[in-house]
């Protein structure tokens, strides 16, 4: 990772997220908090940590998740039905017994509204402050493009949190530049067009995106559609600094609900898939290293 780099992150980012990429590629799982209930959800997130998560993306469910495919949509519906709310989300984060950095993934309206509830009037500051104190390290906000992100970026800067942006296959040129000026922590590389959801192929779009980002000095984590160890391996071997996995894990939760499985059984399967993904990513690291060594 050398050469003539454009620095994307002059801002002082939260060091937790950066650290997570230091020992090789990061495995970054996602689950919707509160799916299907507060307690079960806690057990599942802890299982991800046991399974080797380097960072965990915790979804705070929003009623109109326009960027999600059916799998995560349904998880969000379950979580909302189970009573999940921003307040409970923060309590959840505070009570969580894991030792990895936590990223909050949610939609902008919940961030924006929190100020109103807190009595500040609408705006992102109150939410970021609360998140920071609860132990969140950064944010992914799928409906907040760089163009609308300045208020949230400023609040993050003030509280030392990272703001992660999603780079789509269609993101390039000025837009990419604009985003890279505001991103911190890592870049979320969207593997292909569309919404979230587990798929078995890795698109050419991923490679192209990684190429466009090669000059930027920031970890690139690839997400959207990763479901197994071999995929993880290939993606990391192709240059990703991390893999983000959501729908494949949510599917396990959904199956648990459908088949009325006990919490531990579901947690075990989440841990097992996590190990497989983490192992795949590590094999990818080795392949990449071998490549570098060969040159």
């Amino acid at each position, binding site marked *: 990772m050398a050469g003539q780099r454009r620095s994307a992150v002059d801002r002082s980012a939260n060091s937790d997220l950066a650290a997570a990429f230091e020992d090789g590629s990061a495995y970054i799982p996602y689950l919707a908090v509160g799916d299907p209930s507060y307690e079960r959800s806690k057990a599942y997130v802890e299982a991800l940590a046991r399974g080797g998560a380097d960072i965990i993306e915790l979804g705070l469910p929003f009623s109109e998740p326009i960027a999600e495919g059916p799998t995560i949509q349904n998880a969000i519906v379950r979580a909302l039905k189970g009573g999940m709310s*921003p307040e409970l989300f923060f309590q959840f984060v505070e009570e969580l017994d894991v030792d990895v950095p936590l990223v909050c993934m949610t939609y902008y309206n919940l961030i924006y509204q929190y100020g109103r509830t807190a009595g500040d009037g609408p705006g992102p500051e109150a939410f970021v402050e609360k998140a920071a104190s609860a132990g969140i390290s950064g944010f992914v906000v799928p409906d907040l493009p760089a163009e609308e992100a300045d208020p949230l970026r400023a609040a993050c800067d003030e509280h030392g949190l990272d703001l992660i942006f999603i780079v789509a296959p269609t993101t390039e040129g000025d837009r990419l530049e604009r985003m890279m000026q505001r991103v911190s922590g890592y870049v979320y590389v969207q593997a292909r067009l569309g919404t979230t959801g587990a798929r078995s192929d890795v698109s050419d779009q991923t490679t192209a995106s990684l190429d466009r980002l090669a000059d930027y000095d920031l970890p690139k984590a690839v997400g959207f559609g990763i479901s197994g160890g071999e995929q993880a391996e290939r993606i990391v071997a192709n240059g990703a600094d991390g893999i983000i996995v959501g729908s494949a894990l949510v599917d396990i939760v959904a199956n648990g609900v459908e088949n009325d499985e006990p919490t531990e059984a579901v947690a075990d399967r989440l841990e097992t898939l996590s190990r497989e993904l983490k192992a795949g990513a590590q094999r990818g690291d080795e392949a990449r290293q071998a490549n570098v060594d060969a040159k």
Partner: protein
Amino acid sequence: MSTDGKFGDYGGQYVPEALMPAIEELTEAYEQYVLENKDGFMDEFRDRLTDFGGRPTPLQRADRLSERYDLDIYLKREDLLHGGAHKLNNALGQVLLAKYMGKERIIAETGAGQHGTATAMAAAHLDMPCTIYMGERDINRQRPNVFRMKLNGSEVKPVTTGRGTLKEAISETMRDWATTVETTHYVIGSIVGPHPFPVMVRDFQSVISKEAREQTIEKTGSLPDSVIACAGGGSNTMGSFAKFVDDESVSLYAVEAGGSSLRVDEDTGVAPNSASLSTGNEGVLHGARTKLLQDTAGQIMESHSVSSGLDYAGVGPELAYLVDTDRVTPVTVDDDAALEGFHRLSQTEGIIPALETAHAFGYLEEHHEELSGTVVVNVSGRGDKDLETVIEETDARDVPNAPDMSMFSGGGM
């Protein structure tokens, strides 16, 4: 009038990154084709609105209502537009724009089915494949409209998430768009969504006020004193207001659905109305910052109105801005008064209005004493689509001016 996508703090482009290039492409197309008439786009649009759509629509003096209220009431007859509502102004504009942009496919959401049918008609007319997303519950409430879309060759995809209404259909259409954005144009149905949709839809719909302004001057010799239009997302509303915004003497009333009550329960997340301008507050929904019906946490509420076309928790950002700056007065009319308005217009003027439109006439009845001089009311659509609902809802409550409908109640239409 703003074309930069912001109305004060409202508006913007709160969409997934994957859509941003499409939105930028669309913004450019909007600026070139719509604002600058590149390749004669606007000329073709106007010609097709005339020949296919039936423009100009008349401005009709409502003799009997004028007498009833001792006002000079004029009806802008968008119910006579092809398809039976103002919706075609926008749908035709966007489908044509998609053609100019070289897109190969059209998608759209629909609630009551009016925007869906308008889009399906425009897509058939311009030979564009078209898919319409519609909540499963709305599909069951609006079967004739579903059938019309299919007849026009569109595919109708049921949306089963959530309550299965407009809100979910919009979200689902955005998801399709995020996947197919390179070949597909998303024809949004009102002045909502990310920039450039609110300004573009307004511009396509502003033909309503352009005509109404000229027609009022021609018929009365001067500007109207007031313009009244119902407001769901607000496209017929801004369409009716746009060319009057600079005429400061003209009062502009946006009539929202008061539903069964204006009380919004932010704790349980239920709004028994759809009055975002009157009872909502600022937030971000479907790509724009605007006034919303949301609970304390920021979750979008289940709105309610007897008219499914008004049953939406958001509203166009431009309207939100014009309300905040006191240019537009938001008012509400409840379900009962809307039904009465429906029957009144049917009986006194021989025009069966859409239930959405009926809200404007409910306002007229309840507040005519506060109005004076010449009043233009936009008849945003006809009520054929609502017959079933009117039978049920009139049956379920006591509407004093309803005809005897015992022969209809119970059985299907």
